[in-house]
């Protein structure tokens, strides 16, 4: 048993693991930096993050050492459980409403987890299960329809919370897995065209009525009947009209840009980020959604470069695991995880520098938060599990 564990550990992707640990440690440090200017609660945030990171490492090792084929058998049950949790968010008393969205599940007043994060993991596993089953013909139409439906269910439930940002992450994960599995390019481009059409429709819904001189109530009513809340509308509008409402929804974006920009090449130094200390970067979001702003302000472009290189190493590990995977299910698991992490990194950083709307997607391994930490570490553990069992040449 011990000898086997030793063997497994010796086959691990050490570069990816080291990059992961480096990101975790960096995260703890900058959550400390982001929190120390706040009140007593903020000052202990980093300790809690340390606990999350420890728990995450434990999950990582557990999943790395467990044969990922194990999850193959449980895939459907995990998926159903994730959907159930997503439903629980809407149950009064269990689902918590915060900042206008139901993202959390609580028990006895304690916030436990964000089901959407778990749902991402469950979706990756079920898609890998569907397309990775031995003898499956990946060009099958029925399989494609099944995969689309499996994705659509959690996406709609998350979008209804409403959490547009998280919901949008499911789509590239699905696309990466479909692409890798060997779905014909024709089907994929058709889907992409459809998605583009929907996006265009959304933009027309948002922008055309005010341009045509509709009253605000009438416009709101139209949007609500299409399932878009005013909160989501605001967030998209901030992105589209960059100067709209600089003290409201545009504030975070402007202040985050100032924080990143004023960091310049080498940054202002650890715990010297004035945007954060003085509270211009709102203290409620600095340790989680905007942790990258804090790092970029205090460590400058060089710090940001380091972070991006570390993520590249982690992603590279996932791709190597995918290339060397002993079977299709392992390969698809790795691709799904890589797509998930890449999406979060890209959207989060692009948001802090004002290139994408403020969506509230956390930065993997760095942002403060428990559920997402655990789900990312589990995902990376799955990748390691595949890597360990991969073929070496």
């Amino acid at each position, binding site marked *: 048993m011990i000898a086997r564990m030793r063997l497994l550990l010796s086959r691990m992707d050490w570069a990816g693991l080291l990059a992961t640990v480096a990101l975790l440690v960096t995260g703890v440090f900058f959550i400390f930096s982001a929190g120390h200017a706040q*009140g007593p609660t903020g000052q202990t945030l980093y300790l809690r993050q340390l606990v999350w990171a420890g728990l995450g490492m434990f999950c990582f090792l557990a999943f790395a050492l467990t044969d990922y084929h194990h999850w193959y058998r449980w895939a459907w049950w995990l998926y159903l459980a994730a959907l159930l949790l997503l439903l629980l968010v809407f149950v009064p008393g269990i689902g918590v409403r915060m900042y206008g969205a139901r993202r959390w599940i609580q028990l006895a007043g304690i916030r436990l987890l964000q089901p959407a994060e778990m749902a991402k993991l469950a979706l990756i596993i079920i898609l890998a299960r569907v397309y990775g089953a031995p003898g499956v013909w990946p060009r099958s139409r029925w399989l494609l329809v099944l995969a689309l439906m499996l994705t659509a269910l959690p996406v709609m439930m998350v979008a209804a919370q409403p959490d547009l940002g998280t919901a949008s992450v499911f789509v590239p994960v699905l696309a990466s897995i479909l692409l890798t599995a060997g779905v014909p390019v024709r089907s994929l481009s058709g889907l992409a065209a459809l998605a583009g059409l929907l996006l265009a429709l959304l933009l027309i819904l948002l922008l055309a009525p005010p341009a045509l001189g509709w009253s605000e109530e009438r416009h709101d009513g139209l949007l609500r009947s299409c399932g878009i809340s005013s909160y989501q509308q605001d967030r998209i509008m901030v992105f589209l009209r960059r100067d709209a409402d600089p003290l409201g929804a545009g504030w975070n974006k402007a202040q985050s840009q100032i924080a*990143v920009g004023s960091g310049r090449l080498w940054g202002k130094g650890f715990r010297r980020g004035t945007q954060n200390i003085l509270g211009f970067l709102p203290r409620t979001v600095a340790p989680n959604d905007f942790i990258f702003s804090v790092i970029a302000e205090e460590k400058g472009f060089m710090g940001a470069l380091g972070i*991006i290189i570390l993520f590249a190493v982690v992603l590279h590990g996932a791709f190597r695991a995918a290339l060397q995977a002993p079977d299709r299910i392992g390969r698809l698991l790795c691709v799904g995880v*890589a797509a998930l992490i890449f999406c979060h990194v*890209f959207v989060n950083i692009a948001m802090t520098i004002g290139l994408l709307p403020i969506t509230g997607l956390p930065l993997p391994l760095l942002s403060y938060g428990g559920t997402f930490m655990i789900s990312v570490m589990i995902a990376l553990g799955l990748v390691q599990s595949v890597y360990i069992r991969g073929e070496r040449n």
Partner: protein
Amino acid sequence: MISDYHDKIQKRRLWLLWLLMLAGLSFLLAALWRIQVGMGAHYEGSLERQSVRRVRIPGMRGRIFDRNGECLADNSPSYGIAIYLEELRQGAAHRSTVESALAMVQRIADLTGLVPQVGRGEIERHLQQRRALPLLAWDNIRQREMARLAESAGDLHAVGIVVDALRVYPQGRTAGHLLGYVGKLEVVEEDQPYHYYLPDMVGRAGLERRFDDFLAGRPGGKLVRVDVAGFKYEEISSRPAAVGGDLLLTLDLHIQQAAERALAGVVGAAVVLDVTNGDVLAVASAPEIDPNWFSPILRQAVWNRLIQDPDKPLINRALSGVYPPGSIFKPVVSLAALEKGVITPATRINCQGVFTLGRQTFSCYRSVAHGDIALRLALEKSCNVFFYKAGLACGVDAIHDMAWSLGLGRRTGLAADSEAAGLLPGPEWKRRVMNEGWWDGDTCNLSIGQGALLVTPMQMAVVASALANGGFVYRPRLVSGFRRRAEGLREEPAVLVHKVTWAPENIAAVQAGMRDAVQSPTGTGRHARVPGVSVAAKTGTSEFGPKAARRKHGWMIAFAPAERPRYALAMVVEEIDTAGGQEVGPRMGRLLHAIFGLPEEAS
């Protein structure tokens, strides 16, 4: 194992995905480079603008000293109690800052027994306009309250004692007009390169105004970083305010005070000069003002009283008061006639008490006939008829030129505020202003210092000084030096404006006549006599106002000791009932007593 066909496609697509992600990360890096390196300075500027405030710290004014180093204008510390709002805020997050500040003010009031100076309105305004600065809850508090506060300062965090410089004038009313006063400078804040402007004291009158640039210190400044709520987070850097320069005056406090005592109870002015170099030893104007009334703020009631007083105490009569000189102008006429050669010191002129010119009649004082008299006696007795005849003989131009060369009709150039030029009439002036010719009657009036002629006490002191020193017309020197901490002392030299050349026997005759006016038992200036010192003087009683209700000013110019003159004096008393010699003489005598270190007689 994955079938070969699919494995190949999958691996190709995996590479594609990996390249896509690398491209995405590279895109992020490019965007970060643009923002952080390319536009870093721009964002740094935005950061500064939103989080850094510039505060101006007023400089401390320099002091003013007399010639012996006695301090005339000084700064004294004024203590205030300040509340540091940013600290107050951290302690009580559940209450609004206004409430906490109000509670703190009340607590300090209970501790010290002080009546609160600021209320809710002031605190709210402070939070709106100058949030990053401490709130000054009390200013000008006394030692006792400060001690009480210090006893309990330990548990009063967020409270501090602040020191401000208050302008004080240790000598009270002495030289009040000359020194002037200061006021708070109110500025439009938008025009300033500062976010917060702590007002300076600025000179409003007198030397404080004339030398404001030199006296005012260089303001300092500090950069304060504020948090998102606008409260002070830290001080980034500061440049201390520099102390202004010290002004050293030629004034002699002892003589100045004596001059002011001599003017007790009347409206008038007195000037004492050093005849050897033009140093101004005293400049007094009555009624007096105390510059301390204006500092730190002038109360409305005091201002109204000063403005409404019929004696106009705010005017510095020694410099800006213009009066007809009357008989004290006669020495000037004497020298004009002597130098032109129309009379000699020995020429006798007959006085019958009256002098008729055409249909006009001019008379001596009380129409007394002096008989055949020479210049010396004419000066002693102040005979008008002598000077009518002498003046007509030498003509208006000679008198005008002599007066001009002695500095009349123009400012003396004294380094002080609001000096008047007076008026020296002549044919050209009369043609220009009144569009009329100059008559012999005008010459007669000018010969006894009447008519349109107007002089200031300072001008007459300069004339007296030139008569004493034989024709050296100095620019009165009030400021002897400018002393700055960094640059040391810069001395102001004595400036000789003009040297009038007189024949020695002519000036000697005038000086002798003036000495007789005091030293002779029948002289008009005998009331100014000083034991042990011979004094030379000329009295004057100038008339003004409509013929039906003539009013009189009393005048006297003097120099002493008569043999080796050192001091030149001029004194005027407004609205007298008797003659100048009787009203002004005793006052001049008391001032001379003080100058020569003798006990001042009771009048």
